[in-house]
């Protein structure tokens, strides 16, 4: 069985490095695709622009979504994912610095599966990533992979 991809949508290279470090530290071997803004994330998911030709039926196993993003903001990315038939069941975990009530409420309203605030303390952050990985990649029953239309 091939490990499926984690889509990390994160514009800050430090946070990206720290998140990947935390994943590695916790022995999470999934391939990580990093989208550095909301538009790129959507292009990746829907096989557009630079990602034209990507088999869009292959969905990431988990999306880690920052909210404050260039071009298309995180909540819009989430809204778009939930509005599209192909991606609406995708597990999306909001991973952000904000704990503003309105972000929390809107995030859940738009159908986020979880909302995690990135702790400043790296030890705590690594622990959060460990638990997320354990839950979403191991414990949680993943979506069945989409098969080609004519398969039995």
């Amino acid at each position, binding site marked *: 069985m091939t490990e499926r991809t984690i889509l990390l949508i994160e514009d*800050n290279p*430090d*946070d990206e490095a*720290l998140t990947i*470090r935390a994943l590695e530290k916790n022995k999470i071997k999934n391939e990580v695709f990093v989208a550095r803004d909301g538009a790129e994330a959507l292009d990746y998911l829907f096989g557009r622009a630079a990602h034209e030709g990507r088999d869009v039926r292959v969905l990431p196993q988990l999306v880690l979504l920052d*909210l*404050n993003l260039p071009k298309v903001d995180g909540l819009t990315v989430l809204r778009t994912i939930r509005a599209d038939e192909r991606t609406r069941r995708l597990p999306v975990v909001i991973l*952000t*610095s*904000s*704990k*503003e009530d309105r972000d929390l409420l809107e995030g859940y309203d738009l159908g986020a599966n979880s909302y995690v605030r*990135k*702790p*400043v*303390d*790296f*030890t705590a*952050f690594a622990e959060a990533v460990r638990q997320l990985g354990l839950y979403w990649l191991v414990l949680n029953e993943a979506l069945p992979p989409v098969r080609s239309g004519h398969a039995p």
Partner: protein
Amino acid sequence: MSELQVQSFDDALQSSKARISALEREAVERAGDAEEVLRAHLERYKALVLAIAQVIWTHDSKGEMAGEQPSWAAYTGQTPAQYQGRGWLDAVHPEDRAPNTEIWAHAVASGAACELEHRLRRHDGTYRHFSVRAVPVRAEDGSIREWAGIHTDITERKLTEQTLRDGERRFRELADSMPQIVWAARPDGHFDYYNERWYEFTGRPEGVTGDQSWLDVVHPGDQKSCLDRWRAATESGEPYEIEYRLKARAGTYHWFLRRALPVRDKAGAITRWFGTCTNIDAVKRTEEGLRRANAETAAANRELEAFSYSVAHDLRTPLRSIDGFSQALLEDNAPQLDDRGKAHLARVRAAAQRMARLIDDLLSLARIGRAELHREDIDLTSVARAIGDRLREAYPSREVELCVQDGLTLEGDAVLLGVVMENLLGNAWKFTSRGATARIEVGEASMDGQAAYFVRDDGAGFDMAHASRLFVAFQRMHTAEEFPGTGIGLATVQRIIRRHGGELWAESRVGKGATFFFTVGRRTHA
């Protein structure tokens, strides 16, 4: 003349004499009948004169009363001797005599029918109002034989008129004494009355009413709505209110509140519209000012929120890098680092984490200012004991005796007052940490008749000389080495208590512990 002629003349004479005698006899008989008829007519006339409600009389051609005047005599009580000639004038009210005499003299002189009014004294001495009509009775040759007249009692009509006039006068006095503009209109919407205020305010010529009298003093921006509402009201008969601007005589526009009310008769039909226009310019301008201030506050709040948001988001992000990469250095490059280097990195991490806490505390302080206050009854005893339990769990090595008075209740926002108790108890817990044992007390005391709640500890205390800095953000009584903290806790408590309309104060002596008191404004004492 011949004999024969004389004879025939005699004959003729004789026969004529006989015929004359017969005629004479007949005439005498007829005269008796006529007298009879005349007497009957006279009787009937007298009866009618007395039966009729009006006073009926005749004057001679010179305008003087003559002969028998039964109607006049019956009403005025004057005897024939008294009313003869010009004596009848005695029964006319003295004030009305002179003008009446003049009109009457003119009528008699010109021979034209006349009408006049005067007060006539009744036989019981009371005066009543009469309308008088006199017409000349002419002989065959056109000369005036006499005057016939009729007095009609109009006292009731006069009284009604007077009452109406009094009512009208009272209405005008009332309307003119009001500070508001008062107007009236016909059911068809035609304005036919304004009180003095209208003319004073608009500077329109006194007394001008009508459809053209008002629209051009209404602000051009309000004319359409004003006219539409008025037309709709006159059609539907519904009262209404409208706010609009009227032009003062100086040319400036002022806001008015116009109210219109229909007056209906017993059948429900509108007989009149009455209304007022109240100058609400000052209120309007205050409202306008408030609205502007509110908009500014809202804008400031939005800005603050945006600022808080970026503080929360953007200031934390580099802190995470500082902490994360320090940790990475510690992990990845441990062999290259001596203990000193590791200690430095630990300090870097501690500082980053401390700053993150500061940011979080600042944000919650800002949030308290914005949060809505929901007052409800709170069981303070349970709240304090629950916090105590949590503190004991978090610091199992501490030996703290927590005494919470039973039955402490107050009214306030449960979430915010929870924050207050957490801070006060947390402080008490912290500042007693130097002693081997500690005692923390939570209770109620009466301060100037008002219930005050207190949290008392036997810890480090502070110098009251610095008490004024106690509740200012980032101001600390102790160094971070002595007691850790961000210096925002008591500022937060202060803000919450102020939002409740209450007071917060403290009493302390260095080394003798501290007591923090607070009230929550409105008190529901059981």
